């Protein structure tokens, strides 16, 4: 029986086995027999929180070879109990989106197209511009009341950022004297 069995011809399994009509066990392929969910092969499962709305649904992020292979709800959460909405369920697509920008883009004044620019140079250029514009619009007083600020620099954004990021931003901007700092809480 070995040879035929080895050939694994389902018809033989069908005739000799308990699945005479070839509806189930006989028709099962090797792949189906050894199937398992990709999450089983993950190197790590990391606890995270959905980046979209403010319900704060807990997420489990499965990682294999440094790539995110699945993001789904974490049943342990008392708030979301493992559930997600359509946006939360699309988190893997958000983080692995092929249209994500992964290189710095730079647009020269009056230019019509983007150019490349390496990250280190970009940050340095930005630091220079901050210092220049800060000084250019520095103001010690307004109607003879001390203000010690710059009105040349503004910032918008924060509601999608971490508390730690908002903290460093506000700390740096305040030390810089920049006060036109805003985020989505207001639009």
């Amino acid at each position, binding site marked *: 029986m070995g040879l035929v069995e080895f050939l694994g011809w389902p018809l033989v399994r069908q005739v000799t086995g308990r699945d005479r009509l070839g509806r189930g066990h006989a028709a099962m392929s090797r792949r189906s027999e050894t199937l398992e969910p990709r999450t089983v092969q993950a190197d790590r499962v990391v606890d995270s929180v959905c980046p979209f709305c403010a319900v704060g649904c807990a997420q489990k992020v499965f990682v294999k070879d440094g790539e995110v292979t699945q993001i789904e709800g974490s049943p342990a959460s008392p708030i979301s109990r493992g559930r997600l909405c359509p946006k939360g369920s699309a988190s893997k697509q958000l983080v692995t989106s092929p249209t994500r920008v992964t290189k710095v883009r730079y647009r020269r004044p009056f230019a019509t197209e983007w150019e490349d620019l390496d990250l280190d140079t970009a940050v340095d250029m930005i630091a220079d511009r901050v210092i220049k514009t800060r000084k250019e619009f520095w103001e010690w007083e307004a109607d003879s009341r001390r203000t010690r600020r710059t009105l040349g620099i503004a910032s918008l*954004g924060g509601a999608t950022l971490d508390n730690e990021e908002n903290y460093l931003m506000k700390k740096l901007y305040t030390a810089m004297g920049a006060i036109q700092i805003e985020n989505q809480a207001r639009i």
Partner: protein
Amino acid sequence: MPGLGTSFGRGGATTFLQDLSNADCILIEGSNMAEAHPVGFQWVMEAKRRGATVIHVDPRFTRTSAVADLHVPIRAGSDIAFLGGLVNQVLSNDLDFREYVVAYTNAANIIEDDFRDTEDLDGLFSGFDPETGQYDPDSWSYVPDSRRDVEDEERRDQAYSGGSSHGESHQAARSESHGSGGAPVKWKGRRDETLQDPSCVFQILKRHFARYTPEVVQEVCGIEPDQLRRVAEALTSNSGRERTSAFCYAVGWTQHSVGAQMIRTASILQLLLGNIGRPGGGIMALRGHASIQGSTDIPTLFNILPGYLPMPNAKQHQSLDEWVRDDEGKAGFWGNIRSYAVSLLKSYWGDAATPDNDFCFDYLPRITGDHSTYSTVLAMIEGRCKGYFLVGENPAVGSSNGKMQRLGMAALDWLVVRDLQMIESATFWKDGPEIETGELVTEEIGTEVFFLPAATHVEKAGSFTQTQRMLQWRDKAVEPPGDCRSDLQFYYELGTRIRQKLAGSTDEMDRPLLDLAWDYPLDDGGDPDPEAVLREINGTGPDGEVLSAYTQLKPDGSTSCGCWIYCGVYADDVNQARRRKPHWEQDQVAAEWGWVWPANRRILYNRASAAPDGTPWSERKRYVWWDAEADDGKGRWTGADVPDFVPDRAPDFVPEEGAQGPDAIGGQDPFIMQTDGKAWLFAPLGLADGPMPTHYEPAESPVRNPLYGQQNNPTRKRMEVPQNPLNPSWSDVFPYVFTTYRLTEHHTAGGMSRTLPYLAELQPEPFCEVSPRLAAERGLENGGWATIVTGRTAIEARVLVTRRLRSLRLGDRFVEQVGLPYHWGPNGITTGDSANDLVNLTLDPNVYIQDKVGTCDIRPGRRPRGSALTEYVAEYRRRAAMDVQREET
């Protein structure tokens, strides 16, 4: 925030999502919860399963209405009239929870005689200065209880003001700084517990809302009287000792020129019904973004510092003492403001901050009024602001009056955009609508643009603060690809480089940067360790040991704390936000999952879940109560949640004379952040547009204000610039109301959803929703195209003709409403026009947020292209005679 902040003392949701399942009735208004917070909505469904009544009040019949027991269609922007109508039903039929109202609210307080209500002044309160468009709140204050009250106040003034007398700030109620604390009244004031005194708050409230009858509500909101009565009946029959009702709201209330007052009306209603601080009650503020609550607690906002400490104001605060004076010494936990302020300065400037230099108070820049995003965009257009950082935000689509946003950005020297995808705000110079119409020419736009790719939420560790004030930690799963970096790393790197470049400077201007405490431990990838930052936020003692409660903060500079309301998130040197004890191992409060500010408490003001004598109002609604036997007879507050009260303060405790700060909190004062310990039905201070909510029409309205001569909010912030023309009200050129909103399938400005195939295919094109009657009137076909036009611009959208949009009967005429989701822009897999380009900028005076409603016209067919578009809109403006300056009332 100020809506909840002034009413209860803190600017955050008063309850938690799971608690909605304990509600006997849930009113969802100003929110489309099933679509905008679907997973949070499971708790509303849980309540419904247990027999609760779910009511949804919304201009449209949405997916929330589909599963609600009652849907009440309302004209967008008229919520105060409806809620006022409910208040009137409660007060005129004595259906309020009297025992709760007398003990826990300022209903009994007597108000100054010279206070005049909107009934007397046809829509204005006393103290209005037409020139400045602001109120002086003096006439709204409490009558002092006795001579001694007045002496107390003067003594406190002397002690803290270094002798120089100072006038109470005339900048009305300094509304913008009380996100987390009640505004400081001078004294607790005289009270008539029988509520009969004609000048007591209860009677004033009754008179104020007397004219909000069902007939008036039908006239203003288009809600039939029997619907109003059904809602009133549902709420009142589900309130009191045995039953509680909960409210849920979101930007449907906040985004109005009367936004804060809408939330105030809801607060008043919930206080009259006695639902605040109780299980299954409260007001659930549903925030939009993952950490919008976090971005107001630790604010990247112009008017506050972390912990809702007010940003120093150039006119009033030129020293640390002046900065903390208003709150210092007053009753309530705000009384310790000096400790919080000094600790913040220590965390900013570390050792450089010493007692003799006012802990570097002078390093703080000072504000001089409104520097909100819309004023800033105006400054950009006028060339007064040249550098702009966009960090995970897309104003070209997300902000209102998109054209103004793009014109502002076109006038910049440099723009730094940090995002995941190439958003419209980064490419306005290439493919913005103005390039198409020729109003802007790419080659003439001088803005230098840096697009720095950002890391996603799984490529960086950090914490979000979600809608019920809970901090939840995310671990880092993978490294960010290519040039992507977290914003933490970018700002740390930017700060480090700026400090290096200024290292040798002796210019006083650079001292704050050079003395900044900016050294954080770096991980091997060169990124600052986010847990170290959270630890700094939590606060440390003299020798760097971690603090565990804000009560440990000292005013002498021995403690440092980045955000006093977050003190405790790193208690016992453990990242409490990272706790994940599964819910099946805890009760519903689940205190060991994440960390909730303040002090890991879920339901705020939960002292009010017990009767004045400390016993639960009822067994069914037992939550927090006074256990007389605890601590061998001394007694202690105990229950399912962390008591929001001084743990060992007996219910019958009466503070001695002249007590200050927390010691001044009586045993029956559940609202421990308020200076009088009571919840405010009447807000003597803290709101720029009046002590009580009043119905005013949105800036652009199809009808005249039926209640008062005063058409709009008198203190609204107007942006009278060419780029922000207002449609004339009750005009037949713009006869319809439009309201913008979100869909489940997309995320705000769309940057995180229009670029994802699985979401884009669910809602692939911008559309507008119109009633069958409006469709017939304007010849619109289902699935066809329509052009929607306002004074700002015209956009096109596909048409969905649906009965879910009802023709509302206001008096004897019909008002039609057009629904517009706003997720689209020129970029992404599916593109389209941005609905926010239609919106005008008229701002709420408390938080400078815009009206999301306005008037429009709608025509079949697609919009004109190129410069023909500007001509088409200009023609509308001519027909509406908008360019002629008309005196607005």
